[in-house]
């Protein structure tokens, strides 16, 4: 749609605008001598240069886009993580990724887990792990945020945390309502070209499933009741 718009509608609009403008300009000729126009254009260019200098000196953007080589590295790392996960090895979840911990209390030996979410909680990877040094009747839920890179931007901080709580002796995991994040990207290239080339080249956006991981640590005595089948065991 966008391409059609650009190719057909914009030219017409442009042509009309340019003609209108040129005819208007030729009538106002008395004020606008070539010298004055030249001064006008030069000052406009100087203005642009000033803007450029201002941006390059004073505007350190807080958000940095990752370079392709950095992305490659990250990708490798995430692939490894996937491997660990498949082998049910939790050792990849280091302190670096830890975002939040919930300590929850429950009664009895069973802990039903209910995941609420708009699309049945598929936002999260939920893993269960037995731990020896936990008192019975206590569960520790830890949220790990692995890197989320979209279009070279690390969005790990922007992903909303789930809501984890106990009610009626059941563990509820709820994802928060959808969150919208807007970014203005300054990209001094031609996006028509980039867009077309991206179709065949490897995707720039890294959409990786293993990024939001919830670990439920429970004592060995407890049985985790998972009626939705979303929770997997992990060492």
């Amino acid at each position, binding site marked *: 749609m966008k391409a059609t718009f*650009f190719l057909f509608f914009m030219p017409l609009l442009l042509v009309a605008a340019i003609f209108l403008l040129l005819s208007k*300009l030729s009538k106002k000729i008395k004020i606008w001598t070539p010298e004055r126009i030249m001064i006008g254009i030069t000052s406009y260019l100087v203005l642009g240069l000033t803007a450029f200098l201002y941006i390059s000196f004073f505007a350190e*953007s807080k958000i940095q886009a990752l370079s392709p080589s950095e992305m490659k590295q990250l990708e490798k790392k995430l692939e490894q993580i996937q491997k660990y996960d498949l082998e049910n090895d939790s050792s990849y979840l280091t302190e670096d990724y830890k975002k939040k911990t919930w300590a929850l209390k429950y009664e009895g030996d069973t802990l039903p887990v209910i995941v609420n979410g708009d699309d049945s909680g598929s936002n999260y990877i939920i893993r269960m792990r037995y731990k020896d040094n936990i008192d019975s009747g206590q569960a520790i839920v830890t949220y790990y945020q692995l890197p*989320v890179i979209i279009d070279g931007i690390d969005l790990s901080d922007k992903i909303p945390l789930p809501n984890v709580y106990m009610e009626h002796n059941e563990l509820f995991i709820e994802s928060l309502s959808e969150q919208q994040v807007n970014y203005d990207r*300054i990209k001094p290239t031609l996006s028509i070209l980039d867009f*077309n080339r991206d179709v065949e080249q490897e995707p720039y956006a890294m959409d990786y499933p293993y990024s939001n991981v919830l670990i439920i640590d429970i004592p060995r005595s407890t049985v985790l009741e998972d009626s939705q089948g979303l929770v997997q065991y992990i060492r």
Partner: protein
Amino acid sequence: MQSLTNISLKTIVKKQVKWKAKLYISALSSLVILQIIFGILLSSSGSTSGYGRGNLSVKFSIYSLDMFLIVSAFWAFIVAILFTTKAYRIDDLSVISSRTSSAIANIFVMIIYSFIAVIIMISTFYLKVLEILLAEKQSFIIENLFISPSILLLCFSSICLFGAIGLLLGTSFKGPTLIKVPIILLLLIFISLVSINLNSLMMLPNLIISVIYLFVSVLCFCLTIWIADKSEVSRK
């Protein structure tokens, strides 16, 4: 008998370029205004792309050079056609000139103006960036502040190409019918060929695209001179 003045084509073209570059300047001021209207005021962003990821939806507003280039290219096309219209052509007759010298001078002016148009384009781009920066302090990402030379060359060659097509079209309209028809057909074939192969064209590296554009521009320029050489003056 007094001796006749001997003036080379080169001298005349130089003088014509000098005066035309100055006298056609309103074309450039129109570009500035167009860039401000279309680039800064009208467009919120060049393009947007959205990603949904679970309960996070990300919207990227991408500010690229596209809009600025499209405006410049169309501007070049129309300005080039205007250069070949009656008002400008008749002005040429008031001084030493031939249609050939006028056509060559127009081509040079078009090339100079294309170059300035690129600078105006960049200038507008940075002004736009500044505007975003002042408006949205938090959420903007500068991927790269410097425009790569290959992109600059591509912009220049695109503007040049549109200008060249405009000049060729405008000149062939005034040329002999015998030439007019095939040239317009040729242009149509060229445009349709390009639009069919647009995708594969865009896959080429910037530099190659630029070279192709410049090559076609030069071809158009040569045809323009050739037609101008054969054209009569029509003052109707």
